[in-house]
């Protein structure tokens, strides 16, 4: 419960994630995992409590009883309800994730199939393809057979250095498999939008992934090139369609202008240790007597 509301609120409001996106991403994943574990674990431990002091003992007892076809004496209606609810919840969470993964893979394959016919390979950039469209768009299609796509509008709007920054940004998404980082948050966020922490987590993770890719692009292509690319692609799209500049893009530009200092080694270690502890503590509580 604590993880769903106050912790996710604090993590979403904190400023340090902008300085260490990787650590913050790990922490979000840990919060999600620990929250799920605690929720499922609470139901299962309550249900099996009459059979033993720890989960492994209790499960062993239950199996023993069932093998002899007798019903364990301690299990009442409430315990059975708690067990059934936990199992149903676990099945639902895994089912939703599986379904989202399948849908995602299918949509990606369809897109890639069309892309391979409609976009022309770009001789100067290995692995990149060009779509003949004047709107400036750059994106990547993740997966084992990933694709990197830019539109002609992007090529026209960017200098070679800016283009290199965009491609470095997209390659960072592909290489670090950000799609896999985002997928559980998107899948569970879509099924349980009423859980307060969920929407925040989804938004924060999406933003952090962009920050992380920006950091990689900045290291490879330089700060000016990345800022210029953001202004051109983001600004071009904004000029064409909108009266106000995209809030997300200006947020990322801000971050480039006031370049945040990298946190100290100790601070970075602390966020990773906290992530580890978040997952380890509920697990240990379940498994140890």
């Amino acid at each position, binding site marked *: 419960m604590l993880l769903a509301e106050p912790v996710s609120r604090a993590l979403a409001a904190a400023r340090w994630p902008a300085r260490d996106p990787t650590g913050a991403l790990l922490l979000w994943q840990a919060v999600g995992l620990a929250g799920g574990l605690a929720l499922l674990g609470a139901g299962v431990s309550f249900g099996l409590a009459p059979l033993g002091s720890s989960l492994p003992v209790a499960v062993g007892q239950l199996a023993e009883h069932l093998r002899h076809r007798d019903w364990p004496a301690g299990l009442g209606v409430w315990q059975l309800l708690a067990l059934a609810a936990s199992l149903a919840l676990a099945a639902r969470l895994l089912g939703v994730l599986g379904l989202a993964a399948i849908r995602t893979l299918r949509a990606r394959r369809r897109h890639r199939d*069309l892309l391979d016919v409609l976009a022309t390979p770009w001789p100067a950039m290995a692995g990149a393809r060009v779509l003949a469209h004047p709107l400036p768009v750059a994106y990547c299609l993740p997966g084992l057979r990933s694709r990197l796509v830019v539109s002609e509008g992007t090529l026209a709007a960017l200098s070679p250095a800016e283009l290199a920054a965009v491609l470095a940004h997209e390659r960072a998404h592909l290489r670090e498999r950000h799609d896999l980082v985002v997928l559980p948050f998107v899948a569970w966020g879509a099924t349980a939008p009423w859980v307060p922490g969920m929407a925040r987590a989804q938004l924060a993770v999406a933003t952090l992934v962009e920050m992380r890719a920006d950091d990689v692009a900045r290291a490879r292509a330089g700060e000016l090139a990345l800022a210029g690319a953001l202004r051109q692609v983001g600004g071009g799209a904004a000029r064409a369609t909108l009266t106000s500049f*995209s809030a997300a893009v200006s947020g990322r530009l801000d971050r480039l202008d006031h370049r945040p200092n990298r946190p100290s080694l100790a601070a970075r270690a602390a966020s990773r240790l906290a992530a580890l502890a978040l997952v380890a503590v509920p697990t240990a509580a379940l498994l140890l007597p």
Partner: protein
Amino acid sequence: MAGLGELERAVMDVLWAASEPCTARDVQDALAQRELATTTVLTVLGRLERKGLVSRTRDSRAHRYQAAGTREDHIATLMRDALDGAPDRGAVMVRFLGGMPPEEQAALRDLLR
């Protein structure tokens, strides 16, 4: 040897340039300098049909193939796909402008209609 994608693009160019539905033979002749085997042309046409880029009709003697939609239509579809901000599509693609507010994505998509 040219990749399959390259061959598919060449066949589509033939179909887009043609004024009427083509037989596999017509496509083969149009790409004569590539010296393609008939089976290769049929395989490529079959793949394009599965992808929804080509439609096939049958007249008395032969199957005829026709481009389903213009190149511009399909490219607009891809761009819409790439910009689509629906929640369960969020993980399909990662865009350079990821994290754009939904109403701005909608405005961008409207441009592509």
